[in-house]
Protein backbone atom coordinates (compact mmCIF):
# COMPACT_ATOMS: atom_id res chain seq x y z
CA UNK A 1 0.00 0.00 0.00
CA UNK A 2 1.27 3.51 -0.82
CA UNK A 3 2.43 5.91 1.91
CA UNK A 4 -0.41 8.31 1.12
CA UNK A 5 -2.97 5.57 1.65
CA UNK A 6 -1.35 4.52 4.89
CA UNK A 7 -1.54 8.15 6.06
CA UNK A 8 -5.18 8.36 5.07
CA UNK A 9 -6.40 5.05 6.43
CA UNK A 10 -4.61 5.02 9.76
CA UNK A 11 -5.53 2.39 12.30
CA UNK A 12 -7.49 4.91 14.39
CA UNK A 13 -9.63 5.83 11.37
CA UNK A 14 -10.27 2.22 10.44
CA UNK A 15 -11.23 1.51 14.02
CA UNK A 16 -13.69 4.42 14.23
CA UNK A 17 -15.13 3.36 10.86
CA UNK A 18 -15.70 -0.17 12.12
CA UNK A 19 -16.95 0.83 15.55
CA UNK A 20 -18.20 4.42 15.39
CA UNK A 21 -18.54 6.04 18.84
CA UNK A 22 -21.70 7.86 19.89
CA UNK A 23 -23.57 6.41 16.93
CA UNK A 24 -27.09 7.36 17.98
CA UNK A 25 -29.56 10.24 18.15
CA UNK A 26 -29.82 12.24 21.36
CA UNK A 27 -33.47 12.35 22.41
CA UNK A 28 -34.54 15.97 22.79
CA UNK A 29 -31.20 17.24 21.46
CA UNK A 30 -30.70 19.87 18.76
CA UNK A 31 -30.14 18.14 15.42
CA UNK A 32 -28.76 19.03 12.04
CA UNK A 33 -28.51 16.94 8.91
CA UNK A 34 -25.45 17.15 6.72
CA UNK A 35 -25.63 16.07 3.10
CA UNK A 36 -22.95 15.62 0.45
CA UNK A 37 -24.81 15.79 -2.88
CA UNK A 38 -21.78 14.50 -4.72
CA UNK A 39 -21.94 11.06 -3.17
CA UNK A 40 -25.32 11.02 -1.43
CA UNK A 41 -23.77 10.62 2.02
CA UNK A 42 -25.88 11.82 4.93
CA UNK A 43 -25.21 12.33 8.61
CA UNK A 44 -27.46 13.48 11.38
CA UNK A 45 -25.59 15.23 14.18
CA UNK A 46 -27.37 15.74 17.46
CA UNK A 47 -26.20 17.70 20.48
CA UNK A 48 -27.33 18.39 24.01
CA UNK A 49 -26.22 21.90 24.94
CA UNK A 50 -26.79 23.08 28.46
CA UNK A 51 -25.76 26.47 29.85
CA UNK A 52 -23.38 27.04 26.95
CA UNK A 53 -21.67 23.68 27.37
CA UNK A 54 -21.83 20.75 24.95
CA UNK A 55 -22.93 17.96 27.30
CA UNK A 56 -23.40 15.27 24.66
CA UNK A 57 -22.75 14.85 20.92
CA UNK A 58 -23.84 11.98 18.69
CA UNK A 59 -24.22 11.14 15.02
CA UNK A 60 -25.98 8.71 12.76
CA UNK A 61 -25.95 8.10 9.04
CA UNK A 62 -24.09 6.48 6.21
CA UNK A 63 -20.86 7.41 4.59
CA UNK A 64 -17.37 6.37 3.66
CA UNK A 65 -14.72 5.47 6.22
CA UNK A 66 -13.39 9.03 6.28
CA UNK A 67 -16.82 10.58 6.86
CA UNK A 68 -17.72 8.08 9.57
CA UNK A 69 -14.40 8.19 11.39
CA UNK A 70 -14.32 11.97 11.27
CA UNK A 71 -17.85 12.19 12.69
CA UNK A 72 -17.04 9.65 15.39
CA UNK A 73 -13.81 11.41 16.42
CA UNK A 74 -15.67 14.70 16.39
CA UNK A 75 -18.24 13.51 18.89
CA UNK A 76 -15.42 12.64 21.28
CA UNK A 77 -13.57 15.88 20.65
CA UNK A 78 -16.49 18.23 21.22
CA UNK A 79 -18.03 16.66 24.27
CA UNK A 80 -17.53 18.82 27.36
CA UNK A 81 -16.36 21.93 25.49
CA UNK A 82 -18.12 25.27 25.78
CA UNK A 83 -19.93 26.38 22.62
CA UNK A 84 -17.18 28.94 21.97
CA UNK A 85 -14.48 26.30 22.39
CA UNK A 86 -16.33 23.92 20.09
CA UNK A 87 -16.63 26.62 17.42
CA UNK A 88 -12.92 27.25 17.76
CA UNK A 89 -12.24 23.51 17.38
CA UNK A 90 -14.30 23.48 14.17
CA UNK A 91 -12.16 26.33 12.77
CA UNK A 92 -8.96 24.51 13.73
CA UNK A 93 -10.17 21.29 12.15
CA UNK A 94 -11.16 23.06 8.92
CA UNK A 95 -7.81 24.74 8.64
CA UNK A 96 -6.01 21.47 9.33
CA UNK A 97 -7.79 19.53 6.56
CA UNK A 98 -7.48 22.33 4.02
CA UNK A 99 -3.89 23.40 4.72
CA UNK A 100 -1.13 22.72 2.19
CA UNK A 101 -0.05 19.11 2.56
CA UNK A 102 3.65 19.87 2.70
CA UNK A 103 3.20 21.98 5.83
CA UNK A 104 3.25 20.22 9.19
CA UNK A 105 -0.36 19.92 10.34
CA UNK A 106 -1.53 21.75 13.44
CA UNK A 107 -1.52 19.48 16.48
CA UNK A 108 -5.12 18.71 17.29
CA UNK A 109 -4.43 15.68 19.41
CA UNK A 110 -6.37 12.62 18.31
CA UNK A 111 -7.99 14.58 15.46
CA UNK A 112 -4.58 14.91 13.83
CA UNK A 113 -5.03 11.44 12.32
CA UNK A 114 -7.34 13.13 9.81
CA UNK A 115 -4.58 15.40 8.47
CA UNK A 116 -3.95 12.68 5.85
CA UNK A 117 -6.97 13.83 3.84
CA UNK A 118 -5.01 16.92 2.77
CA UNK A 119 -3.34 14.76 0.18
CA UNK A 120 -6.73 13.64 -1.18
CA UNK A 121 -8.58 16.81 -2.20
CA UNK A 122 -11.72 14.92 -3.21
CA UNK A 123 -11.99 13.47 0.28
CA UNK A 124 -11.80 16.72 2.28
CA UNK A 125 -15.57 17.10 1.96
CA UNK A 126 -16.07 13.64 3.42
CA UNK A 127 -14.01 14.57 6.47
CA UNK A 128 -15.84 17.90 6.89
CA UNK A 129 -19.43 16.68 6.51
CA UNK A 130 -20.31 16.06 10.17
CA UNK A 131 -18.29 19.08 11.27
CA UNK A 132 -20.38 21.42 9.12
CA UNK A 133 -23.54 19.96 10.58
CA UNK A 134 -22.15 20.38 14.10
CA UNK A 135 -21.14 23.97 13.34
CA UNK A 136 -24.72 24.73 12.26
CA UNK A 137 -26.05 23.41 15.58
CA UNK A 138 -23.45 25.40 17.51
CA UNK A 139 -24.31 28.56 15.57
CA UNK A 140 -28.02 28.19 16.30
CA UNK A 141 -29.32 25.40 14.09
CA UNK A 142 -31.03 26.39 10.80
CA UNK A 143 -33.71 24.07 9.46
CA UNK A 144 -32.50 23.18 5.93
CA UNK A 145 -29.82 20.48 5.61
CA UNK A 146 -26.33 21.93 5.37
CA UNK A 147 -24.44 20.89 2.34
CA UNK A 148 -20.73 20.56 1.76
CA UNK A 149 -21.14 22.09 -1.73
Amino acid sequence: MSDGLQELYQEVILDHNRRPRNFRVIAGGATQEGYNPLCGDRVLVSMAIDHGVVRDVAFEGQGCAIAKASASLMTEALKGLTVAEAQERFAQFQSMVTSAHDEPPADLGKLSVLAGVREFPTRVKCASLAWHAAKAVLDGAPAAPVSTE
Partner: protein
Amino acid sequence: MAADTVPAVETAARAASIREEFPILGIEAHGRRLAYLDNAATTQKPREVIDAIAGYYTTSNANVHRGVHLLSERATAAFEGARDDVAAYFGAAHRHEIIFTRNATEGINLVAQSWGGRHLAAGDEVLISAMEHHSNIVPWQLACERTGAVLKVVPIDDRGALDMEAFGRLLGPRTKIVAMTQLSNALGTVTPMAEIIRAAHDAGAVVLVDGAQAAYHLPVHVQALGADFYVATGHKLYGPTGIGVLYGREALLDAMPPYQGGGDMIASVTFEKSTWNTLPYKFEAGTPHIEGAVGLGAATRFIRRIGFDWIAAHEADLLAYATAAVSAVPGVRLVGTAPVKASIVSFVMDGVHPHDIGTVVDRMGVAIRTGHHCAQPVMARFGVPATARASLAMYNTREDIDQLVDALHDVRRVFA
Protein backbone atom coordinates in the same frame (compact mmCIF):
# COMPACT_ATOMS: atom_id res chain seq x y z
CA MET B 1 -22.50 -12.86 -35.91
CA ALA B 2 -19.03 -13.05 -37.44
CA ALA B 3 -17.75 -11.04 -34.49
CA ASP B 4 -18.29 -13.95 -32.13
CA THR B 5 -15.76 -16.07 -33.98
CA VAL B 6 -12.80 -13.73 -33.37
CA PRO B 7 -10.52 -15.66 -30.99
CA ALA B 8 -9.79 -14.01 -27.64
CA VAL B 9 -6.03 -13.98 -28.18
CA GLU B 10 -6.37 -12.08 -31.41
CA THR B 11 -8.69 -9.51 -29.86
CA ALA B 12 -6.24 -9.06 -26.95
CA ALA B 13 -3.32 -8.35 -29.29
CA ARG B 14 -5.41 -5.91 -31.28
CA ALA B 15 -6.60 -4.14 -28.12
CA ALA B 16 -3.01 -3.76 -26.97
CA SER B 17 -2.08 -2.16 -30.27
CA ILE B 18 -5.15 0.11 -30.19
CA ARG B 19 -4.12 1.19 -26.70
CA GLU B 20 -0.94 2.58 -28.27
CA GLU B 21 -3.05 4.93 -30.39
CA PHE B 22 -4.19 6.74 -27.22
CA PRO B 23 -1.26 8.85 -25.98
CA ILE B 24 -2.69 9.47 -22.49
CA LEU B 25 -2.86 5.73 -21.75
CA GLY B 26 0.95 5.71 -21.69
CA ILE B 27 1.20 7.97 -18.65
CA GLU B 28 1.66 6.68 -15.12
CA ALA B 29 -0.88 7.16 -12.36
CA HIS B 30 0.69 7.41 -8.90
CA GLY B 31 3.75 5.65 -10.28
CA ARG B 32 1.77 2.71 -11.70
CA ARG B 33 0.59 1.65 -15.12
CA LEU B 34 -2.70 3.50 -15.77
CA ALA B 35 -5.74 1.21 -15.96
CA TYR B 36 -8.44 3.57 -17.18
CA LEU B 37 -11.81 2.00 -16.42
CA ASP B 38 -14.00 5.11 -16.19
CA ASN B 39 -15.05 5.14 -19.82
CA ALA B 40 -18.75 5.54 -19.14
CA ALA B 41 -17.88 8.98 -17.71
CA THR B 42 -15.71 9.90 -20.65
CA THR B 43 -13.42 8.07 -23.03
CA GLN B 44 -9.83 8.93 -23.88
CA LYS B 45 -8.94 10.37 -27.30
CA PRO B 46 -6.91 8.68 -30.03
CA ARG B 47 -4.03 10.54 -31.67
CA GLU B 48 -6.15 10.91 -34.83
CA VAL B 49 -8.68 13.04 -32.98
CA ILE B 50 -6.05 15.15 -31.22
CA ASP B 51 -4.28 15.69 -34.55
CA ALA B 52 -7.53 16.63 -36.32
CA ILE B 53 -8.18 19.37 -33.76
CA ALA B 54 -4.60 20.64 -33.85
CA GLY B 55 -4.66 20.45 -37.65
CA TYR B 56 -7.84 22.47 -37.82
CA TYR B 57 -6.25 25.23 -35.74
CA THR B 58 -3.00 25.20 -37.67
CA THR B 59 -4.51 25.23 -41.19
CA SER B 60 -8.20 26.17 -41.24
CA ASN B 61 -9.40 28.25 -38.30
CA ALA B 62 -12.06 30.87 -39.14
CA ASN B 63 -15.75 31.37 -38.48
CA VAL B 64 -18.10 29.23 -40.54
CA HIS B 65 -20.92 30.00 -42.98
CA ARG B 66 -20.10 33.68 -43.31
CA GLY B 67 -16.75 34.54 -44.81
CA VAL B 68 -15.71 34.52 -48.45
CA HIS B 69 -12.03 34.13 -47.68
CA LEU B 70 -9.92 31.01 -47.92
CA LEU B 71 -9.87 30.11 -44.24
CA SER B 72 -13.60 30.56 -43.80
CA GLU B 73 -14.19 28.26 -46.73
CA ARG B 74 -11.84 25.68 -45.22
CA ALA B 75 -13.45 25.95 -41.80
CA THR B 76 -16.94 25.59 -43.29
CA ALA B 77 -15.82 22.58 -45.32
CA ALA B 78 -14.28 20.96 -42.23
CA PHE B 79 -17.36 21.63 -40.10
CA GLU B 80 -19.85 20.42 -42.71
CA GLY B 81 -17.58 17.48 -43.55
CA ALA B 82 -17.86 16.46 -39.91
CA ARG B 83 -21.65 16.53 -40.23
CA ASP B 84 -21.36 14.09 -43.16
CA ASP B 85 -19.14 11.82 -41.06
CA VAL B 86 -21.63 11.86 -38.20
CA ALA B 87 -24.62 11.29 -40.53
CA ALA B 88 -22.84 8.27 -41.99
CA TYR B 89 -21.90 6.97 -38.54
CA PHE B 90 -25.50 7.02 -37.32
CA GLY B 91 -27.09 5.96 -40.61
CA ALA B 92 -29.18 9.11 -41.04
CA ALA B 93 -31.08 9.51 -44.31
CA HIS B 94 -30.03 13.16 -44.65
CA ARG B 95 -27.10 15.22 -43.40
CA HIS B 96 -29.47 17.99 -42.29
CA GLU B 97 -31.06 15.58 -39.82
CA ILE B 98 -27.86 15.89 -37.74
CA ILE B 99 -27.95 18.82 -35.31
CA PHE B 100 -24.76 19.66 -33.43
CA THR B 101 -25.41 20.29 -29.75
CA ARG B 102 -23.14 20.72 -26.72
CA ASN B 103 -23.77 17.18 -25.45
CA ALA B 104 -26.46 14.53 -25.06
CA THR B 105 -28.10 16.57 -22.33
CA GLU B 106 -28.65 19.52 -24.64
CA GLY B 107 -30.11 17.26 -27.32
CA ILE B 108 -32.70 15.95 -24.86
CA ASN B 109 -33.52 19.44 -23.59
CA LEU B 110 -33.92 20.65 -27.17
CA VAL B 111 -36.48 17.96 -27.94
CA ALA B 112 -38.26 18.28 -24.58
CA GLN B 113 -38.65 22.04 -25.06
CA SER B 114 -39.15 22.44 -28.78
CA TRP B 115 -41.01 19.23 -29.66
CA GLY B 116 -42.58 18.97 -26.19
CA GLY B 117 -43.74 22.58 -26.22
CA ARG B 118 -45.61 21.98 -29.43
CA HIS B 119 -46.94 18.44 -28.91
CA LEU B 120 -47.50 17.95 -25.18
CA ALA B 121 -50.70 19.04 -23.47
CA ALA B 122 -52.43 18.44 -20.15
CA GLY B 123 -53.15 14.74 -19.66
CA ASP B 124 -50.60 13.55 -22.23
CA GLU B 125 -47.99 11.10 -21.04
CA VAL B 126 -44.21 10.94 -21.37
CA LEU B 127 -42.82 7.45 -20.80
CA ILE B 128 -39.28 6.93 -19.50
CA SER B 129 -37.62 4.04 -17.63
CA ALA B 130 -36.43 3.56 -14.06
CA MET B 131 -32.80 3.39 -15.22
CA GLU B 132 -32.51 6.76 -16.93
CA HIS B 133 -29.62 9.15 -16.39
CA HIS B 134 -30.74 12.39 -14.71
CA SER B 135 -30.37 14.10 -18.08
CA ASN B 136 -33.19 11.95 -19.48
CA ILE B 137 -35.41 12.58 -16.45
CA VAL B 138 -35.19 16.25 -15.52
CA PRO B 139 -35.82 17.79 -18.99
CA TRP B 140 -39.07 15.77 -19.14
CA GLN B 141 -40.07 16.83 -15.65
CA LEU B 142 -39.61 20.44 -16.75
CA ALA B 143 -41.62 19.85 -19.94
CA CYS B 144 -44.38 18.17 -17.93
CA GLU B 145 -44.47 21.09 -15.49
CA ARG B 146 -44.89 23.54 -18.34
CA THR B 147 -47.49 21.59 -20.31
CA GLY B 148 -49.43 19.61 -17.71
CA ALA B 149 -48.29 16.32 -19.23
CA VAL B 150 -47.59 13.40 -16.87
CA LEU B 151 -44.30 11.53 -16.48
CA LYS B 152 -44.65 7.73 -16.35
CA VAL B 153 -41.83 5.37 -15.44
CA VAL B 154 -41.36 1.79 -16.66
CA PRO B 155 -39.92 -0.27 -13.78
CA ILE B 156 -36.88 -2.54 -13.92
CA ASP B 157 -36.50 -5.97 -12.34
CA ASP B 158 -33.97 -7.11 -9.73
CA ARG B 159 -31.37 -7.78 -12.39
CA GLY B 160 -31.82 -4.32 -13.88
CA ALA B 161 -33.67 -5.46 -17.01
CA LEU B 162 -36.55 -3.37 -18.31
CA ASP B 163 -39.94 -4.80 -17.37
CA MET B 164 -41.35 -5.21 -20.89
CA GLU B 165 -44.70 -6.38 -19.63
CA ALA B 166 -45.10 -3.18 -17.62
CA PHE B 167 -43.92 -1.23 -20.65
CA GLY B 168 -46.75 -2.78 -22.66
CA ARG B 169 -49.23 -1.82 -19.96
CA LEU B 170 -47.98 1.75 -19.54
CA LEU B 171 -47.87 2.45 -23.25
CA GLY B 172 -51.26 3.80 -24.27
CA PRO B 173 -53.19 6.29 -26.35
CA ARG B 174 -52.04 9.13 -24.07
CA THR B 175 -48.36 8.30 -24.53
CA LYS B 176 -46.97 11.00 -26.80
CA ILE B 177 -43.28 10.23 -26.48
CA VAL B 178 -41.13 7.39 -25.15
CA ALA B 179 -37.67 8.61 -24.05
CA MET B 180 -35.33 5.79 -23.10
CA THR B 181 -31.74 4.80 -22.81
CA GLN B 182 -30.33 2.17 -25.13
CA LEU B 183 -27.60 1.28 -22.62
CA SER B 184 -27.77 2.13 -18.92
CA ASN B 185 -24.70 3.92 -17.58
CA ALA B 186 -25.33 2.70 -14.02
CA LEU B 187 -26.19 -0.95 -14.73
CA GLY B 188 -24.93 -1.79 -18.21
CA THR B 189 -28.37 -3.02 -19.27
CA VAL B 190 -28.98 -2.96 -23.04
CA THR B 191 -32.66 -2.28 -23.70
CA PRO B 192 -34.55 -3.99 -26.56
CA MET B 193 -34.77 -0.71 -28.44
CA ALA B 194 -36.07 -2.01 -31.78
CA GLU B 195 -38.94 -3.72 -29.97
CA ILE B 196 -39.62 -0.63 -27.86
CA ILE B 197 -39.76 1.55 -30.95
CA ARG B 198 -42.09 -0.81 -32.83
CA ALA B 199 -44.51 -0.93 -29.92
CA ALA B 200 -44.36 2.84 -29.40
CA HIS B 201 -45.05 3.51 -33.06
CA ASP B 202 -47.98 1.10 -33.00
CA ALA B 203 -49.35 3.14 -30.11
CA GLY B 204 -48.85 6.37 -32.03
CA ALA B 205 -45.97 7.68 -29.91
CA VAL B 206 -42.61 8.99 -31.07
CA VAL B 207 -39.36 7.74 -29.53
CA LEU B 208 -36.25 9.52 -28.33
CA VAL B 209 -33.31 7.20 -27.79
CA ASP B 210 -30.65 8.24 -25.28
CA GLY B 211 -27.62 6.81 -27.02
CA ALA B 212 -25.01 8.53 -24.85
CA GLN B 213 -23.63 5.14 -23.79
CA ALA B 214 -24.78 2.89 -26.62
CA ALA B 215 -23.25 4.89 -29.46
CA TYR B 216 -19.67 3.81 -28.76
CA HIS B 217 -20.37 0.20 -27.85
CA LEU B 218 -23.00 -0.92 -30.36
CA PRO B 219 -23.41 -0.25 -34.06
CA VAL B 220 -26.21 2.30 -34.38
CA HIS B 221 -28.29 2.79 -37.50
CA VAL B 222 -31.11 5.21 -36.73
CA GLN B 223 -33.13 4.30 -39.81
CA ALA B 224 -32.90 0.56 -39.27
CA LEU B 225 -33.76 1.12 -35.62
CA GLY B 226 -36.66 3.38 -36.55
CA ALA B 227 -35.67 6.07 -34.03
CA ASP B 228 -37.44 9.41 -34.29
CA PHE B 229 -34.80 11.20 -32.20
CA TYR B 230 -31.39 9.88 -31.17
CA VAL B 231 -28.96 11.75 -28.93
CA ALA B 232 -25.26 11.11 -28.38
CA THR B 233 -22.35 12.95 -26.82
CA GLY B 234 -18.93 13.49 -28.42
CA HIS B 235 -16.73 12.99 -25.39
CA LYS B 236 -17.86 9.39 -24.92
CA LEU B 237 -17.35 8.68 -28.63
CA TYR B 238 -13.57 9.12 -28.28
CA GLY B 239 -14.12 12.74 -29.37
CA PRO B 240 -13.96 16.12 -27.64
CA THR B 241 -16.15 17.53 -24.89
CA GLY B 242 -18.62 20.28 -25.66
CA ILE B 243 -20.00 18.67 -28.83
CA GLY B 244 -22.99 16.39 -29.06
CA VAL B 245 -25.40 15.10 -31.65
CA LEU B 246 -29.13 15.20 -32.01
CA TYR B 247 -30.51 13.15 -34.87
CA GLY B 248 -34.14 13.87 -35.70
CA ARG B 249 -36.35 12.69 -38.54
CA GLU B 250 -36.66 15.49 -41.08
CA ALA B 251 -40.44 15.79 -40.87
CA LEU B 252 -40.32 16.08 -37.09
CA LEU B 253 -37.50 18.63 -37.01
CA ASP B 254 -39.15 20.69 -39.77
CA ALA B 255 -42.35 21.02 -37.76
CA MET B 256 -40.53 22.08 -34.56
CA PRO B 257 -39.97 25.69 -33.49
CA PRO B 258 -36.39 26.90 -32.89
CA TYR B 259 -34.80 26.14 -29.54
CA GLN B 260 -32.58 29.19 -29.24
CA GLY B 261 -32.49 32.42 -31.25
CA GLY B 262 -29.43 34.18 -32.63
CA GLY B 263 -27.05 34.27 -35.54
CA ASP B 264 -26.85 31.39 -38.05
CA MET B 265 -30.35 30.12 -37.24
CA ILE B 266 -32.25 32.85 -39.14
CA ALA B 267 -33.14 33.40 -42.79
CA SER B 268 -34.06 37.05 -42.33
CA VAL B 269 -34.41 39.43 -39.41
CA THR B 270 -36.43 42.62 -39.13
CA PHE B 271 -37.64 44.18 -35.92
CA GLU B 272 -41.16 43.10 -36.82
CA LYS B 273 -40.44 39.46 -37.60
CA SER B 274 -37.66 36.99 -38.25
CA THR B 275 -37.84 33.86 -40.35
CA TRP B 276 -35.97 30.66 -39.66
CA ASN B 277 -33.13 29.13 -41.53
CA THR B 278 -33.49 25.63 -42.97
CA LEU B 279 -32.37 22.46 -41.22
CA PRO B 280 -30.02 21.88 -39.53
CA TYR B 281 -29.16 25.56 -38.97
CA LYS B 282 -32.55 26.40 -37.46
CA PHE B 283 -31.34 24.54 -34.36
CA GLU B 284 -27.73 25.79 -34.34
CA ALA B 285 -27.86 29.35 -33.06
CA GLY B 286 -24.58 31.22 -32.76
CA THR B 287 -21.03 30.25 -33.68
CA PRO B 288 -20.85 26.48 -33.25
CA HIS B 289 -18.13 24.38 -31.60
CA ILE B 290 -16.25 24.08 -34.87
CA GLU B 291 -13.14 22.26 -33.69
CA GLY B 292 -15.38 20.06 -31.54
CA ALA B 293 -17.30 18.95 -34.62
CA VAL B 294 -14.04 18.43 -36.50
CA GLY B 295 -12.74 16.27 -33.65
CA LEU B 296 -15.98 14.33 -33.47
CA GLY B 297 -15.95 13.72 -37.22
CA ALA B 298 -12.42 12.32 -36.89
CA ALA B 299 -13.55 10.19 -33.93
CA THR B 300 -16.40 8.60 -35.92
CA ARG B 301 -13.97 7.78 -38.74
CA PHE B 302 -11.59 6.27 -36.20
CA ILE B 303 -14.33 4.05 -34.72
CA ARG B 304 -15.46 2.98 -38.19
CA ARG B 305 -11.88 2.08 -39.10
CA ILE B 306 -11.64 -0.23 -36.07
CA GLY B 307 -15.15 -1.51 -36.75
CA PHE B 308 -17.96 -2.66 -34.50
CA ASP B 309 -17.51 -6.32 -35.43
CA TRP B 310 -14.26 -6.25 -33.58
CA ILE B 311 -15.21 -3.70 -30.90
CA ALA B 312 -18.36 -5.55 -29.84
CA ALA B 313 -16.61 -8.94 -29.76
CA HIS B 314 -13.66 -7.62 -27.80
CA GLU B 315 -15.78 -5.74 -25.29
CA ALA B 316 -18.13 -8.71 -24.80
CA ASP B 317 -15.15 -10.96 -24.13
CA LEU B 318 -13.71 -8.44 -21.68
CA LEU B 319 -17.05 -7.87 -19.94
CA ALA B 320 -17.44 -11.63 -19.35
CA TYR B 321 -13.88 -11.78 -18.01
CA ALA B 322 -14.38 -8.73 -15.77
CA THR B 323 -17.74 -9.92 -14.48
CA ALA B 324 -16.28 -13.27 -13.41
CA ALA B 325 -13.11 -11.78 -11.95
CA VAL B 326 -14.75 -8.96 -9.99
CA SER B 327 -17.55 -11.09 -8.60
CA ALA B 328 -15.00 -13.66 -7.42
CA VAL B 329 -13.48 -11.09 -5.03
CA PRO B 330 -14.81 -12.00 -1.56
CA GLY B 331 -17.57 -9.68 -0.32
CA VAL B 332 -18.32 -8.21 -3.75
CA ARG B 333 -21.89 -8.06 -5.06
CA LEU B 334 -22.72 -6.95 -8.59
CA VAL B 335 -25.45 -4.37 -9.14
CA GLY B 336 -26.91 -4.89 -12.61
CA THR B 337 -26.99 -8.45 -13.92
CA ALA B 338 -29.44 -8.15 -16.81
CA PRO B 339 -29.23 -10.90 -19.44
CA VAL B 340 -28.26 -8.43 -22.16
CA LYS B 341 -25.49 -6.12 -21.00
CA ALA B 342 -22.53 -4.22 -22.34
CA SER B 343 -19.40 -2.58 -20.99
CA ILE B 344 -20.31 -1.95 -17.35
CA VAL B 345 -19.54 -3.72 -14.08
CA SER B 346 -21.20 -1.92 -11.18
CA PHE B 347 -20.60 -3.38 -7.72
CA VAL B 348 -20.60 -2.92 -3.97
CA MET B 349 -18.32 -4.54 -1.39
CA ASP B 350 -19.40 -5.69 2.08
CA GLY B 351 -18.43 -3.18 4.76
CA VAL B 352 -16.56 -0.85 2.41
CA HIS B 353 -18.06 2.34 1.05
CA PRO B 354 -17.56 2.83 -2.73
CA HIS B 355 -15.61 6.05 -2.11
CA ASP B 356 -13.03 4.20 -0.11
CA ILE B 357 -12.78 1.58 -2.86
CA GLY B 358 -12.25 4.38 -5.40
CA THR B 359 -9.51 6.07 -3.39
CA VAL B 360 -7.58 2.87 -2.71
CA VAL B 361 -7.69 1.57 -6.29
CA ASP B 362 -6.75 5.01 -7.62
CA ARG B 363 -3.46 4.77 -5.75
CA MET B 364 -2.90 1.46 -7.54
CA GLY B 365 -3.26 3.22 -10.90
CA VAL B 366 -6.87 2.17 -11.48
CA ALA B 367 -9.45 4.79 -12.45
CA ILE B 368 -13.04 3.82 -11.70
CA ARG B 369 -16.12 5.87 -10.87
CA THR B 370 -17.78 5.77 -7.48
CA GLY B 371 -21.05 7.43 -6.57
CA HIS B 372 -24.61 7.50 -7.85
CA HIS B 373 -23.65 7.85 -11.54
CA CYS B 374 -26.28 10.58 -12.07
CA ALA B 375 -28.89 7.87 -11.64
CA GLN B 376 -30.17 8.30 -8.08
CA PRO B 377 -33.45 6.44 -8.79
CA VAL B 378 -31.38 3.39 -9.80
CA MET B 379 -29.46 3.55 -6.52
CA ALA B 380 -32.77 3.81 -4.63
CA ARG B 381 -34.16 0.83 -6.58
CA PHE B 382 -31.22 -1.33 -5.47
CA GLY B 383 -31.12 0.09 -1.94
CA VAL B 384 -27.54 1.33 -2.11
CA PRO B 385 -26.32 4.93 -1.69
CA ALA B 386 -23.67 4.47 -4.35
CA THR B 387 -21.74 1.84 -6.29
CA ALA B 388 -18.25 1.42 -7.66
CA ARG B 389 -18.28 1.12 -11.43
CA ALA B 390 -15.70 -0.18 -13.85
CA SER B 391 -16.62 0.66 -17.45
CA LEU B 392 -14.89 -0.60 -20.57
CA ALA B 393 -13.80 0.82 -23.89
CA MET B 394 -12.17 -0.68 -26.96
CA TYR B 395 -8.62 -0.08 -25.65
CA ASN B 396 -9.05 -1.96 -22.39
CA THR B 397 -7.31 -5.29 -21.92
CA ARG B 398 -7.38 -8.17 -19.46
CA GLU B 399 -4.35 -6.57 -17.86
CA ASP B 400 -6.55 -3.61 -16.85
CA ILE B 401 -9.06 -5.98 -15.25
CA ASP B 402 -6.33 -7.94 -13.46
CA GLN B 403 -4.94 -4.67 -12.11
CA LEU B 404 -8.42 -3.73 -10.84
CA VAL B 405 -8.92 -7.11 -9.19
CA ASP B 406 -5.49 -6.94 -7.49
CA ALA B 407 -6.41 -3.49 -6.22
CA LEU B 408 -9.76 -4.79 -4.90
CA HIS B 409 -7.84 -7.37 -2.89
CA ASP B 410 -5.82 -4.47 -1.45
CA VAL B 411 -9.09 -2.77 -0.53
CA ARG B 412 -10.10 -5.92 1.33
CA ARG B 413 -6.78 -5.97 3.16
CA VAL B 414 -7.09 -2.33 4.25
CA PHE B 415 -10.64 -2.74 5.53
CA ALA B 416 -10.42 -6.33 6.79
